[in-house]
């Protein structure tokens, strides 16, 4: 079958048009959508950042990490401690005063988020160097262990994280401009990375580590790079999430929390190894988890009031996870990506097919 390739010039035009349309749409959303709708859009962007970055680790490099939420926690806490005003900190930390230097500084949202990401990346590096010596499910368990340790420390070190009470009254900085810009940045960076030589080497490692090593690929270094990049963006997503919800506490970052499980469902649904798949998964799962809220609320059916059952959504998502794995392991995209070329080929295929089918009909 022929594959069609677009010219570079056409792609530039298409890209700029897409960005222009996206900006118009965002302006429209900002002005005329309800706050609930905006919140969902924000959540979609944040979840997509998480899914794309986890997909780099799990899907593209083949490191089965269960610790993503731990890095999100690190980013969320770091950024929140930096954006809270000094007065607010004194109010929040009434059990034990906050330690220096956090007790006397306040930064703007952008720097705080970037620093949050960097600290998460640093933790990622700390964890990656020892843990990536393991493989398969040992690695999964070790990363889960690390994220649990982070959470337990967040609960324990009261003078840094305010313990189980968490941080409250964070400034509500996250809006769709911030979240979608960061999503664009994340996607751009990770797509560039996966299409580079590094990315191809990462995929080689995933497919056959021993063969990759035999080809002279520095497996250890590349896996660490992928892990650290993934944790950086998880930290950024954590900061965005914290400033959207305006309150964080250690319980949010447990492995069994919907956030953690849903990210996994997103990348599995989208297709492990596909960045566009991760974004599609994030959109579907975020919508679904909002839409399914009606199950947990009260329902009135033919005059009967059925009381909502809390926990129903998690039940559906976990069942979805199992069903996907049994019947639909490839996910929506498999390992394919949606690119302009992909769309173009799709259109050409459709165009070519149509007359052929018509002919068959005539005969």
């Amino acid at each position, binding site marked *: 079958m022929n594959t069609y390739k677009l010219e570079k010039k056409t792609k530039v035009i298409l890209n700029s048009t897409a960005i222009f349309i996206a900006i118009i749409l965002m302006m429209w959303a900002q002005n005329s959508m309800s706050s609930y709708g905006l919140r969902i859009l924000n959540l979609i962007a944040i979840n997509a950042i998480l899914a794309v970055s986890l997909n780099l680790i799990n899907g593209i490099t083949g490191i*089965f990490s*269960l610790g993503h939420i731990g890095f999100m926690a690190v980013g969320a806490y770091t950024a929140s401690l930096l954006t809270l005003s000094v007065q607010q900190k004194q109010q929040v930390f009434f059990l034990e005063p906050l330690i220096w230097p956090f007790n006397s500084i306040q930064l703007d949202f952008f720097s705080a988020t970037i620093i949050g990401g960097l600290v998460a990346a640093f933790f990622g590096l700390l964890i990656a160097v*020892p*843990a990536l*010596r*393991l493989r*398969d*499910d*040992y690695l*999964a*368990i*070790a990363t889960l*262990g*690390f994220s*649990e*340790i982070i959470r*337990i*420390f967040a*609960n*324990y070190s009261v003078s840094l994280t305010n313990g189980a009470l968490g941080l409250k009254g964070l400034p509500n900085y996250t809006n769709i401009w911030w979240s979608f810009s960061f999503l664009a940045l994340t996607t751009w960076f990770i797509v560039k990375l996966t299409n580079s030589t590094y990315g191809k080497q990462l995929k080689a490692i995933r497919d056959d580590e*021993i063969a990759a090593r035999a080809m002279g690929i520095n497996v250890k270094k590349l896996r660490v790079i992928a892990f650290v990049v993934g944790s950086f963006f998880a930290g950024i997503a954590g900061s965005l999430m914290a400033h959207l919800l305006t309150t964080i506490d250690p319980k949010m970052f447990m492995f*069994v929390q919907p956030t953690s*499980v849903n990210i*996994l469902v997103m990348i*599995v649904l989208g297709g*492990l190894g596909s960045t566009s798949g991760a974004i599609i998964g994030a959109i579907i799962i975020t919508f679904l988890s909002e839409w399914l809220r009606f199950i947990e609320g009260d329902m009135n059916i033919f005059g009967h009031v059925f009381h909502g*059952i*809390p*926990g*129903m959504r*998690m*039940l559906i*998502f*976990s*069942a*979805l*996870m*199992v069903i996907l*794995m*049994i019947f639909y*392991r490839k996910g929506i995209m498999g390992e394919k990506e949606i690119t302009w070329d992909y769309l173009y080929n799709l259109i050409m295929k459709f165009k070519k097919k149509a007359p052929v089918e018509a002919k068959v009909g005539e005969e």
Partner: protein
Amino acid sequence: MSIQNFLQYLMNGVSLGSLYALIAIGYTLVYGILRLINFAHGDIFMLGTYTAFYMITLLSIPWWISFPLAIIVTALIGFSVDKIAYKPLRNAPRVSALITAIGVSIFLESLGVVVFGGRPKAFSFRALHYPKELYKMVVIGGIRIQMLTFVIIIVTALLLLFLVWLIYRTKVGMAMRALSKDIPTTKLMGINADKIIGLTFALGSALAAAAGIMWAMKYPQIFPYMGIIPGLKAFIAAVFGGIGNVKGAMIGGFLLGMMEILIVGFFPQLAGLRDAFAFILLIVVLLVKPTGIMGEKIQVKV
């Protein structure tokens, strides 16, 4: 710390450790054969205690029938979990099986929340009419020990003896050991692998249910997420002992329980980090000796 205190802690450690050992064996049996971490094991532990609880409160079956009956029912649950969720994935990549196991785990937890309600329930002798004599204190040489501690240790010992007999002295056990070495060849020898694997799941679940009931008597509160922490810790115990190795799981369970209690005993100010110890231990073990203290060396195939 006096020697008395130390012995006191040691005794508590042994009773906690024996519960870990019982759960850890479930992980090890399944991992030994399928190379699958059955994440849902902790939740089967939870289902076991809830089954016992509802048999007594709803069906008013006396405790001495419901406890064994709950263990049998849980064994059936474990068997069906394997049939429904894991069996279709026998030839799938390991990551798919692992994701499924996580899915099943969260499914059972949420099912627990939906069906049983999220609020903790009291698993006390008053509510369930099991003998309150279990909570009596016995003083031996200045150490105060609950009767329950002895019961836990004795029941665990009996179950473990039974298990060792089953694995090393019966045909079923021989089939299990053969499967853990090489599934295709074992099938060629005319062994129904699916049946044995199902049986393994049932056996592991039964042990988890026994541990769950005793756990709930020790800490008399049950809730749908109760299986997570004991499950993870028992898994760590299994890795510690060398996952896939039954004796290793027993040793790992006892050691982990004793270490946990002793560390908290010696450094009470670190009690808040209690759950972190197990994870730190896990990571240290994985890094120093990934196959655990009793484990065999894994060969990477080229």
